[in-house]
């Protein structure tokens, strides 16, 4: 039997690829909370996210023997989950006769939760998650995959079935929309402060000292 402690995911994946079923099961047990979290972000509700998790691991199981280990196991799973989520969202929007771009998240928004009850970082997080849920699904997918899960543009474009250029356009549009939701117009949504440290980061390193002197 496999040890109960988590083995490095790459070893589990390699063993699973050789037909070790208990290794695959351990892989599911270990990685599914993260895959489920991604699915929730992408499809917006627990029911659809559960379906996405199911499909993700079925596909992973079918192709695990071809997993080469040149990408992280989690990245590989996240890509599959992104593709499954995209299929799911397309199917859902067709069922509603609504184009994907217009589809808003159907989960409840939580912006109106009592601000006194959640403070600091958890308040920022709650506001951010709520803003993400308000994005059209097509924009949210790209922002989540790029800015949260750090997938390359190429991977995102491939899994969503769009061009790299389209993925970038959606990413930038999604970021702008989030910025408007979080900081506009009076910036009451987010706590003030803590931003000054960042302002020189855009400037190339050689010029940073000059920038600070300005």
């Amino acid at each position, binding site marked *: 039997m496999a040890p109960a402690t988590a083995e490095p995911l790459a070893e589990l994946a390699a063993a699973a690829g050789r037909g070790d*079923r208990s290794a695959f099961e351990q892989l599911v047990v270990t990685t599914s*909370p993260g895959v489920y*979290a991604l699915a929730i972000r992408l499809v917006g509700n*627990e029911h659809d996210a559960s*379906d996405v998790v199911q499909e993700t691991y079925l596909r992973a199981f079918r192709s695990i023997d071809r997993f080469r280990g040149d990408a992280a196991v989690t990245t590989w799973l996240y890509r599959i989950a992104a593709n499954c989520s995209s299929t*799911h969202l397309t199917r859902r929007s067709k069922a509603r006769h609504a184009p994907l771009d217009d589809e808003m998240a159907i989960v409840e928004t939580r912006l109106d939760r009592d601000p006194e009850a959640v403070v600091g970082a958890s308040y920022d997080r709650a506001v*951010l998650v709520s803003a993400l849920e308000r994005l059209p699904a097509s924009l949210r997918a790209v922002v989540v995959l790029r800015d949260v899960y750090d997938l390359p543009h190429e991977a995102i474009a491939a899994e969503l079935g769009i061009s790299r250029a389209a993925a*970038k356009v959606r990413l930038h549009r999604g970021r702008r929309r989030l910025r408007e939701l979080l900081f506009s117009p009076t910036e009451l949504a987010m706590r003030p402060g803590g931003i000054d440290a960042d302002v020189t980061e855009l400037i190339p390193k050689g010029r940073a000292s000059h920038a600070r002197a300005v």
Partner: protein
Amino acid sequence: MHAPCDRLAELMPALVDGDEAASPVELSHVEGCLRCQAELARYRRLARLLAQLKHEREELPPGLVCDVLASVERVARRGAASSGSRRRAVFVAGLTATVTLGGLGLALASRARPLVSRGRRSAAGL
């Protein structure tokens, strides 16, 4: 009018992580413009907050892991049947025990349902 600021505000979602590069003229404007620096800082803060979500884990709905493993079992069984692989068939037969043991490691046992009791239908039609 704030023409450079407005143009840079449009570009900012692409500039913030280097998807696009600002021209030298635009860069030097940002260096001297508090308004643009504040806007950039908002995008930086947004990026930081988004990145923090990566490590979040959601507690799975009860039974989901078992449902996933049951679906995998069905697929494997079908594969074993079609390939006629005896070794795999024997392996599949031992699945129920392994699932239970795997679940124990992450304290899933208390929530785990009997593997064979309920077949959650996957949207993939499997």
